[in-house]
């Protein structure tokens, strides 16, 4: 594995296009073999293969499509379903009780050895290739050009719910109050645009589950968590091909 990395790294100077398809596939396979799902985005050139599927795997920070490139890394095994994140979200963003911008899924595995229960926080994945914006007939939902957040322009929303059906993450709800579809915007309106640095849910988490930051900034706490090889990092439903910006890890 180390040899392989060295080998690939040495080719890095030659430019990505010089790596053979076979080699790329080999590396990707190794990644999958090691982690079972996805070998964390890296700064070596092998990411050019990973990059086909995942948003974060830019080979250099500068190549990120957005600046800041907001992202969240979720330490899923630390979640205890205290739901303080959900409470903070509802309070900050005035989410009605029939909808949610973030929630916690529960998975019971009675036959597992040791821990038999798992809590999984979910929210809008702020995908790089979002289905929702693609299918919206009025462009009421769009990708913010600066920071990549998937936003709503409620004045354009006709409530057709096509975006809801297009979303692989079930991250949208119809708000009766504003007569439009609404969703998580990483607290852009309520906090980030007012100078806060992190989302309400990340701030409220007492267990260090939700790490919020800028994937293109090496000093951001999300940067190292994603750009390393030792510990598995994965995304939800990679097969949807939307290149999500919510990463999951353990430990």
């Amino acid at each position, binding site marked *: 594995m180390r040899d392989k990395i060295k080998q690939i790294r040495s080719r890095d100077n030659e430019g990505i296009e010089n790596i053979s398809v076979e080699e790329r596939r080999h590396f990707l396979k190794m990644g999958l073999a090691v982690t079972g799902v996805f070998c964390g985005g890296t700064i070596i050139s092998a990411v050019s293969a990973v990059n086909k599927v995942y948003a974060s795997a830019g080979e250099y920070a500068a190549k990120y499509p957005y600046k800041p490139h907001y992202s969240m890394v979720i330490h899923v*095994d*630390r*979640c*205890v*379903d*205290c*739901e*303080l994140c959900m409470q903070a979200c509802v309070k900050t963003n005035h989410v009605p009780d029939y909808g949610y911008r973030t929630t*916690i899924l*529960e998975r019971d595995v009675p036959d597992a050895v*040791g*821990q*038999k*229960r*798992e*809590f999984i926080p979910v929210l809008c994945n702020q995908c790089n290739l979002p289905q929702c914006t693609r299918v919206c007939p009025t462009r009421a939902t769009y990708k913010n050009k600066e920071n990549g957040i998937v936003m709503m322009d409620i004045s354009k929303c006709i409530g057709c719910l096509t975006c809801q059906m297009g979303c692989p993450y079930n991250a949208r709800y119809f708000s009766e109050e504003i007569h439009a579809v609404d969703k998580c915007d990483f607290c852009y309106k309520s906090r980030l645009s007012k100078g806060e640095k992190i989302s309400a849910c990340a701030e409220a988490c*007492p*267990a260090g589950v939700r790490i919020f930051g800028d994937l293109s900034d090496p000093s951001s706490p999300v940067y190292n968590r994603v750009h390393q090889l030792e510990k598995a990092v994965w995304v939800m439903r990679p097969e949807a091909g939307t290149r999500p910006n919510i990463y999951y890890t353990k430990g």
Partner: protein
Amino acid sequence: MKRTIFLTIVTIVLAAFFLVTDGFADDSGGEIVYKSVTFSHKSHVDGMGFDCETCHDGIFEMEAGSMVASPDFSMDSIYNGEFCGACHDGSMAFASDDDCTTCHTRPGGDILYFKPVKSVLFSHAVHTEAFGCESCHTGMFKMEALAAQENDDFTMESLYQGEYCGACHDGSTAFASDTQCATCHLGVKGYNRMQGGEQANQSGH
């Protein structure tokens, strides 16, 4: 649960018996049920032959509940020879600091903490298989459900420092407190399920 029902039945039967016979043996007090201890008049009076004055001339009031109301009615006092400790000193009767479970016949059941976070389940059933009451109830935990969550230091940090559950959940006696979070933590969902279950149970009675 079975045991509680059984004891309740015994109490009712005894009460009925005393009512019918209009005060057998000057209306002896029957079964005195404390939180986890049951004191039996029958075994102490009939079985061991103590007369009423042995106890009701200074050691105990003739009124159930009067002891519980007194702050002195604790193991410390009992160890110091007061109350049950007047006899349960290891010479006249088995010692109080020894056979906890002979007196404490009902462990506390399931305890569902909801502070500082919802929610953590402690189950006596799981723990009393391997541990005697004294493992936890000499200093570590009170015999009072949810007492610990009133303390400001009932947190993970304390557990990591070996306090509370962390005394055993340290990776050697039992799985460490910084692993298997969701084995102890049931979350808000678990809390709502348990509360729902309890309410359903209560309305079933």
